[in-house]
């Protein structure tokens, strides 16, 4: 596996010299190539903005869905199960199309491409976030609730000050995974015209007819973006691990 990556890169480089490739289309030393590159990079803004907005909303919604799942009340638990099972069963692409084209018809409110994308991504991810939160909260020792009880903390304070800070620390790697997942899934919002990375690449391909080079750049853009995000998530985990338990 470790050998496969450099091998693939070398092949890519060598074949780049052959006549199958036409790197001129994104050659930064030429004026048109540089303009094309800038055009491709300009999608980064919406990819990041869309993903971050969606992940923030999905974390909040996920937590609000997870809490009833931990209740003693069976109706609240049933609500949690139903939500998770239903939302998890819908393909993201279908949800994006439904929210953008369908939802305005029943709600009567027009939704911008950006917010349709955010709603669809956040909704879809919230089911997974809910499961992550539930597992994280369940992993906290029962003694922590009992101790909170004996110092008279109510439910909200117990969650806010005692349980969630410990649970979030434990689920941070999983939350990082979801952020990476979200960045990748945001490419699907290109189908409704969101001007993010994938859409920009598609548009350039239509005018330049060089799908191989342009989509290769697109791959590298996602790769770089996600490596950067992973690096920061890992650093955050490390800094939070300093006050881990025993």
């Amino acid at each position, binding site marked *: 596996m470790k050998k496969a990556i450099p091998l693939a890169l070398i092949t890519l480089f060598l074949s780049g010299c052959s006549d199958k490739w036409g790197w001129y289309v994104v050659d930064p030393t030429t004026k048109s190539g540089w303009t094309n590159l800038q055009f491709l990079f300009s999608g980064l803004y919406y990819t990041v903005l869309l993903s971050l907005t969606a992940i923030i909303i999905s974390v909040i919604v996920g937590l609000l869905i997870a809490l009833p799942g931990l209740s003693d009340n069976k109706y609240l638990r049933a609500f949690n199960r139903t939500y998770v099972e239903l939302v998890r069963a819908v393909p993201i692409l279908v949800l994006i199309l439904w929210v953008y084209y369908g939802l305005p018809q029943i709600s009567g409110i027009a939704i911008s491409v950006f917010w349709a994308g955010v709603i669809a991504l956040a909704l879809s991810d919230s089911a997974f976030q809910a499961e992550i939160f539930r597992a994280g909260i369940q992993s906290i*020792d029962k*003694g*922590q609730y*009992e*101790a909170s*009880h*004996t*110092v*008279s*903390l*109510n439910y909200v*304070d117990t969650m806010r*000050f*005692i349980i969630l*800070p*410990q649970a979030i*620390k434990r689920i941070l790697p999983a939350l990082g995974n979801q952020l990476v997942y979200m960045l990748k899934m945001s490419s699907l919002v290109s189908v409704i015209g969101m001007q993010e990375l994938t859409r920009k690449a598609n548009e350039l391909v239509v005018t330049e007819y060089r799908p191989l080079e342009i989509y290769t750049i697109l791959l590298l853009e996602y790769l770089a973006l996600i490596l950067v995000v992973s690096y920061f998530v890992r650093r955050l985990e490390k800094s939070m691990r300093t*006050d*881990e*338990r*025993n």
Partner: protein
Amino acid sequence: MQSTDSQAVITMDRVSKHFGNFQALKDVSLEVRSGERVVICGPSGSGKSTLIRCINQLEKHESGTIRVDGVELDDTAQSLNAIRAKVGMVFQQFNLFPHLTVRENLTIGPMRARNLSKADADILALQYLDRVRIPEQADKYPRQLSGGQQQRVAIARSLCMEPSIMLFDEPTSALDPEMINEVLDVMVELAGSGMTMICVTHEMGFARKVADTMVFMDHGEIVEKSEPGKFFKSPESHRCQEFLQKILHH
């Protein structure tokens, strides 16, 4: 010793509790007077922990009545809140909040539940840390402390809520032997201050020193209840004699 004429502050009347098919408490009745020090012992699974956990409603009893300081324990939030404010508890596993410093462990209850200002809560915390003899550890995290120190922090955390009753659930059972005494010393000091205490423990030296009343439980029942002199010298029941022989082997 003193205060024999004070009123009952805890009254349990025919309390029962099941875990599935297992009956943890069978019609248990017990009265504890204000300022009384009660030590409960008995083999594991005899219902000792369940008994004291019912007193602060960590376990809900199924039948019978429990009154704490005039409040009858039912399922209402009102009675639950009243009890939590009056009854402190120390656990076998300490159950400190690992992500908070010692000081924060002590101040969170007073600040959130008793609405003390941070400054007042800090003063209170340091006062009780002083009392359990570890004021210098205030800004450490629990994992940086020894087991004995952690348990003393847990005692201080409970005292910061200024309860009138303290429950101890095998407070020294999870400790290394050399740390047991530092925790017992704190408990002896607390017993001298007139606090109503119920301790589930097998530290019979401690029991002899502080207990007003000894209780022996077996199979979910109170088998023997007497003052320590009689309890250790001439227990009435056969089961209690047997148990004491086993744990007082030296």
